[in-house]
């Protein structure tokens, strides 16, 4: 559909944003989640200070879950880049790299919200609890990936290969961090405060589930933005 009515290139009319509907929906949904975190969900039993700090959970848990998901996606694209001849191109590498960068972002968010939660709940902002330690190490892993890519900035092919290998090799510590370490080491992390014997309270579900969806939509949007930007830059470079 030609929005410019045949006008020439340097038109100043705004172009249509692809998928605007779900992006606006995401914006509205997140507003609802923020509102709901403070006004809809009751404080949870078992949390201190009248359960107010449990509201940080609505942002902390989706961030943490999403950061693991990002790593998984990054690793899948890395594996595809290395082992599949069909996907052995720089676009797959770009997707892997974007996923890891967003993983870094969400991991940072999870660390910060977790720290806020700990500060309100136990009065101390950092405890070196196993899960807290795990998430910091996860941050380091993402950061190392970014450092490796920076060190190889001028050599795209080698960068793609080496960072894919690093992502795959780092799966071992990442999986141990996510699954084994919290179970091996007893910690203060509340594991079942969200689940009472009768299941999650309805009010909690009303805010938590949309929160997951909202964060997921944010991830998809940011992923798409980064990918488009990278594609445009590489097009410009290919042309010039």
């Amino acid at each position, binding site marked *: 559909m030609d929005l410019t009515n045949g006008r020439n290139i340097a038109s100043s009319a705004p172009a249509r944003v692809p998928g605007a509907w779900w992006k606006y929906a995401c914006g509205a949904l997140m507003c609802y989640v923020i509102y709901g975190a403070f006004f809809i969900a009751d404080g949870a039993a078992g949390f201190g200070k009248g359960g107010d700090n449990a509201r940080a959970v609505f942002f902390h848990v989706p961030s943490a879950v999403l950061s693991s998901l990002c790593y998984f996606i990054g690793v899948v694209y890395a594996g595809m880049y*290395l082992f599949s001849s069909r996907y052995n191109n720089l676009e797959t590498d770009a997707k892997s790299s974007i996923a890891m960068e967003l993983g870094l972002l969400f991991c940072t968010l999870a660390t910060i919200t977790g720290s806020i939660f700990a500060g309100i709940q136990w009065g101390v902002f950092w405890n070196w609890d196993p899960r807290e*330690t795990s998430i910091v*190490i996860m941050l*380091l*892993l993402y950061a*190392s990936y970014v*450092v*490796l890519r920076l*060190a*190889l900035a001028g050599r795209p092919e*080698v960068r793609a*290969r*080496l960072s*894919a*290998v*690093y992502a*795959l*090799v*780092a*799966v*071992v*510590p990442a999986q*141990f*961090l996510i699954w*084994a*370490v919290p179970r*091996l*080491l007893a910690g203060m992390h509340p594991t079942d405060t969200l689940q009472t014997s009768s299941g999650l309270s309805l009010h909690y579900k009303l805010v938590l589930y949309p929160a997951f969806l909202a964060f997921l939509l944010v991830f998809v949007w940011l992923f798409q933005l980064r990918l488009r930007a990278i594609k445009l830059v590489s097009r410009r470079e290919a042309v010039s």
Partner: protein
Amino acid sequence: MIRGAVQPDAAGWASQARALFLKDVRAELRTRVALSSVGLFTFAALLLIALATRVLKETLTVDLARLPEAVTSEQIRAHMLPAWDDPGKMGLLWVLLIFSAFAGLAHSFVHEEEAGTTLALRLSMAPGAVYAGKLCFNLAVVLCVAAIATPAYVLITGLHTGPIAEFLVLMIAGCLGLGAVATIVAALAAKARGTGGLFGALGLPLLIVFELMLLNAANTLYGGDVTPLQSIKDFGGLISYSVLLIAVSAVTFHFVWEE
């Protein structure tokens, strides 16, 4: 990409790996680059630790929760424990070993780049064999360092080893993980032509996780009454980490190694 003329079959692969390992050993014994940097570092670090912890070693502490309400000096004395406990000493030992390994192994793939023998290596050997040979050499280096540093450390700090068999399993499993991480990270860093800083930056997160599990297993060692199941879980976790890491490294190594 220049393909090697050698087709790797099982027997040829292993003997290639052994050949590379022996070549590295001979080169190392001749030039003593890794051994000297590691040896110097380890010696200096042990000396520093001995000096720095002189007072800490003698310090005693008491757990107030265990004391009755009204205490006498004798009761306090009876309850005093060393401030620097065995898990803490074990932790510091592994910090020492990790940095020693870094000093020695960071350049395990850089030598070839400098000596210009990489091409010859690439032509004559399958990547898997190169990885196996380098891994064995690095493991040997780590084990040698541990074998020398650990008794010295025990003497200096008075670390209690607990049950000897489990202690040995712990140390060997630790060296295995250390060598495995160092090998693949050295390959990546060498290919990236990064400085030594890149090796550290890449290897550290991988090692921290390993160290966490190592220290957890060490706690088991000193725990006193520990079920065999718990020991198996802890040591099994350590060894499975190393094994998995080696497996992934072996599969992806040729992507690092090829031009």
